[in-house]
């Protein structure tokens, strides 16, 4: 029999039902795997086996839960009561949240077993997991490469079978890009679909929590557990949560798929382009109607994002001042000195860079030229999608312009790093759901991802198309030889 750690949640549920596996065997299998592979990958920053075993014991009453006995790994910006939650930043050293994020409560209510926290770029600022205060996570397909970011730890752990399911957060592509680079499934739900209560905020008009999984079926299962209105998050939307597993139907006949002509542009790797074009042909062969569409403002999305993201981040990160939690500069004399000392010692380079950029864009004299201008162009980007969705049901693009790059390759050049989010950022700006699924491999055996973007709150169409593609291809079955 295959090792339990290598299976999906829906496979394990079947095994548990048949009585051929139980939750404690699954948990041991996963922890054995972590012990064996994580010293090489460094995807997990905090694993708590004792707590997981306790949860397993108290969990026996929840046998009917949708995720009963299934191990889940959480990105380290999601609060778990009394467990270290650091955003991979020195400034949150020692912080243990006094409450659970809503997604954590929902996972536990369905019997899921939380196994620990995964590495990330500091405060989710990055596309490579290299800005973490714990050091970089490595890509399971090539240990010399980055796993993508910022949810790089979650994606690498899923790819290396160190967990069955994982959650990430996506502000400009932080779930989809690492999923693409690690050859797994990553989904950013519609803005408002999943509560952010207890997610440490980066950019409040963009952030969304979502699943990182081994296949599309698990993404549907996990989304169904975490989605839904929450009075603790005023931006969560009070719409019924469909049974997403019912969208797992092999049928794209007549589905109108738009391919934006702007996505085949300069900077797109030839092998990525070839894989994505082939994927579009597969969908066409399965009966989808492929149409050429245009999103004319795509080329401005990164500019808009690198004003709005840092502006909101500079405001959200003002709370880290050494007063209520985390690090405090004990040598400082006086209040202002304490703020300055704490923040200067606690934040890493990328965090400082984004705080400076955001503060500048919001400061007197520059607000109109940068922040307000970006908000107006954001409207134009949103309108591009509205127009496009008048003639198609789903948009398909590459997830990332290149496969995983080498560790250290882009750390000296922040702008080059920012450009790796070109395909994912527009969905955040417009609040749309997006998913990345495996669609190929480069010549050097690095995974390539296909992105699908749907209308607001139409995760169902997206999941159906993703599932149909997956079930007609084998890319998701290939695992890294780690």
């Amino acid at each position, binding site marked *: 029999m295959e090792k339990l750690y290598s299976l999906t949640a829906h496979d394990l549920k079947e095994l548990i039902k048949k009585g051929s596996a139980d939750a404690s065997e699954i948990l041991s299998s996963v922890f054995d795997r972590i012990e064996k592979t994580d010293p090489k990958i460094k995807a997990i920053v905090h694993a708590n086996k004792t707590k997981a075993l306790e949860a397993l014991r108290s969990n026996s009453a929840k046998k009917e839960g949708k995720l009963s006995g299934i191990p889940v790994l959480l990105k380290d910006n999601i609060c778990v009561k009394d467990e270290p939650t650091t955003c991979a930043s020195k400034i949150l050293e020692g*912080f*243990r949240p*006094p*409450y659970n994020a809503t997604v954590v409560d929902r996972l536990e209510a369905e019997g899921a077993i939380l196994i620990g926290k995964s590495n990330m770029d500091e405060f989710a600022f990055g596309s490579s997991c290299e800005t973490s205060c714990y050091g970089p996570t490595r890509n399971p397909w090539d240990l010399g490469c980055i796993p993508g970011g910022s949810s790089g730890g979650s994606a690498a752990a899923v790819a290396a079978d160190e967990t069955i399911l994982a959650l990430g957060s996506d502000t400009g592509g932080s779930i989809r890009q690492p999923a693409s680079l690690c050859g797994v499934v990553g989904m950013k739900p519609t*803005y*408002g679909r999943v509560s952010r209560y207890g997610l440490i905020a980066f950019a*409040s*008009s963009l952030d969304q929590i979502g699943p990182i999984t081994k296949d599309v079926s698990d993404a549907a299962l996990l989304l169904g557990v975490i989605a839904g209105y929450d*009075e603790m998050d*005023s*931006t969560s*939307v009070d719409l019924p949560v469909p049974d997403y597993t019912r969208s797992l139907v092999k049928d794209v006949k007549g589905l109108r798929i738009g391919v934006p002509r702007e996505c085949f542009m300069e900077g797109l790797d030839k092998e990525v382009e070839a894989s994505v074009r082939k994927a579009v042909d597969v969908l066409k062969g399965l009966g989808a109607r492929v149409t050429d569409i245009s999103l004319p403002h795509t*080329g*401005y999305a*990164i*500019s*808009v994002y*690198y*004003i709005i993201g840092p502006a909101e981040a500079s405001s959200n990160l003002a709370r880290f*001042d050494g*007063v*209520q*939690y985390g690090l*405090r500069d004990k040598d*400082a*004399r*006086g*209040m*202002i000195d*304490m*703020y*300055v000392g704490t*923040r*200067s010692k606690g934040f890493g380079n990328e965090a*400082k*860079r984004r*705080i*400076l*950029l955001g*503060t*500048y864009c919001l*400061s007197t004299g520059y607000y109109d*030229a*940068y922040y307000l*201008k*970006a*908000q*107006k*162009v*954001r*409207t*134009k980007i*949103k309108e591009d999608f509205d127009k496009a969705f008048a003639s198609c049901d789903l948009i398909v693009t590459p997830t990332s312009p290149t496969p995983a790059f080498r560790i250290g390759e882009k750390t000296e050049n*922040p*702008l080059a790093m*920012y450009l790796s989010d070109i395909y994912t950022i527009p969905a955040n*700006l*417009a*609040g*749309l759901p997006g998913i990345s699924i495996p669609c190929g491999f480069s010549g050097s055996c690095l995974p390539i991802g296909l992105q699908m973007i749907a209308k607001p709150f139409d995760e169902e169409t997206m999941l159906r198309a993703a599932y149909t593609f997956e079930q007609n291809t084998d890319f998701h079955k290939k695992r890294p030889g780690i």
Partner: protein
Amino acid sequence: MELIDKATVKHVAHLARLSLNDKELELYSAQLVSILAYISKLNEISTEGVTPTSHPLSSLKNVFRSDTLKPSLEADEALNNAPAQQDGFFKVPQIIEGK
């Protein structure tokens, strides 16, 4: 759009309560110049009369709730993570100059 100089970066750092050494000031100034140069391509687009988007939910207006008493975090739980505390309060360095 004018690009940022070192004096402005220093001022912005002060606003953000960050102190930068000379090396950092040099580095961030150069990087911010290239980032802002890239960003300024937004000026190519006319946004005359365009309504700004502050978040993606067009239907979302103010969210209110009734003002009713509910249990909340206990004071000692809220203070658990404090770097310094005294008598049930967060303790900070002296704010007002004097004795």
